[in-house]
């Protein structure tokens, strides 16, 4: 089964990160490197990326067939999507176990969402 792990940030988590010493930051980045390495090796990793700040995002609307991309303004969002893992694991429990190894899990900022499939058995 495929699962998407969503990693959120908010102003508080940003403050916590900024307050870290270099060693603490290196430790956090190292945890990610180890996790990515393990998931690649187990064949469970499909993709994992970190997203740029929401301030760099484009807002897209279709207006009379024309695509219009605008910078913000965005409502002061409390939380924003900061990164994701797309996994193919045996079970939801396994996906949750992996989510627990993501450093942000300490802050309770991780969400695991099952991916819908087009497969279906006889009803």
């Amino acid at each position, binding site marked *: 089964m495929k699962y998407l792990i969503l990693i959120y940030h908010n102003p508080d988590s940003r403050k916590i990160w900024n307050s870290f010493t270099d060693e603490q930051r290196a430790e956090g980045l190292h945890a990610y490197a180890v996790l990515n390495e393990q998931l690649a090796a187990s*064949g469970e990793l499909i993709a994992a990326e970190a997203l740029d700040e929401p301030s760099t995002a484009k807002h897209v609307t279709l207006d009379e067939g024309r695509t219009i991309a605008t910078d913000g303004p965005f409502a002061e969002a409390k939380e924003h999507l900061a990164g994701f893992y797309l996994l193919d694991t045996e079970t939801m429990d396994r996906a949750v176990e992996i989510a627990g190894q993501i450093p942000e899990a300490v802050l309770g900022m991780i969400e695991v969402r099952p991916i819908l499939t087009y497969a279906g058995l006889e009803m």
Partner: protein
Amino acid sequence: MTDEVEALLRSLAPEVLAAIIRRQGDFDTSEDAVQEALVAGAAQWPRDGVPANPRGWLITVASRRQIELWRSEAARRRREESVSRAEGSPVASGTDKETFGPDADDTLSLFVLCCHPALTPTSQVALTLRAVGGLTTAEIARALLVPESTVAQRISRAKQRIRESGGRFLLPTRAERPARLAAVLHVLYLIFNEGYAASSGERLVRVELTAEAIRLARQLHAALPADGEAAGLLALMLLTDARRRARVSPAGDLIPLAEQDRGLWDRAAIAEGLALVTKALSDAPVGPYQLQAAIAAIHDQAPRAEDTDWREILGLYELLERVAPGPMVALNRIVAVAMVEGPRVALARLALAERDPALVDHHRLEAVRAHLLEMAGDTDAARDAYARAARRTLSIPERRFLENRAERLAGAKT
């Protein structure tokens, strides 16, 4: 021409791989080398013609390629590591072709190695498709709907794990045999289901996984003609796949068994599956695949849905629940109870069964409840149960089916 070449290459894949492993003992580079020989054959044979001795051609090309692989840096590193694991070498020194049985044993040894207990089921599936099935990494990736890099990782990691745990290219001992064989059957069953489930509303081009699973099950059955479960699994696949064309509407909607156009069922596949399961049940000890095949056979033999012998099906499910209990079996048995003893009795059984923790969260529980409530004429409760069931499945076609049922009941009421 190309299809014939591909079929020939795939049928030779396990034999060629077995021959190379026997000579060199190294599963890892042998597998890579054979894969490249198959790719070379696929490129050259349609153009230049099939060689007089295709098997010999592939063995020669693969052997040459393996030597190149050993010379490459990656392989050098692997060989250095191999010094420390000499004990775990796949082939004991001094063995030669004669100590192994005929080709059927080779195929079986390969199946058993690919379904090594140190591997996860997803890795066993990938490795079996590659090493026994002769599919390329790209084809497996397309079939399993994951990126090629993910499949490549799974395969290389799987080979590494087999090496680390001292997996050998040998037939399992008598004591190991039931467990190892069960793993092989389970992997083939997973491959089949992956393909069968995907045939609904699938928009992506996929390798015919059901056909591949049936082909591999045929090879396994040929290697183990007296094994009732190997025959049972092949029969189950044939009897299930026979309904393929009838189970999905042109719009991609799932059609339940009772509403399928039975004229679309594949009679030849049904006849073959029926003969297999009948023989297995009379010759061999009974097992779960034989029982599931027998249930599929009863459905397939009924000219109309109302002719189905539900009493017989119920008896088989009761037997199946004793030899291989599980949530799906429990739910299917309750559906059979409804057909024999009526929906109220079945609902009472469901109320008892759902205390089992394995069933509480099962996505099919609400779908079965909805079906029973609908049979019992409890329209409001059935509609609610269908709606709950729709929310619980992750399958888009199943969700659409369940939502349609809920809507239909809403319409019936007003």
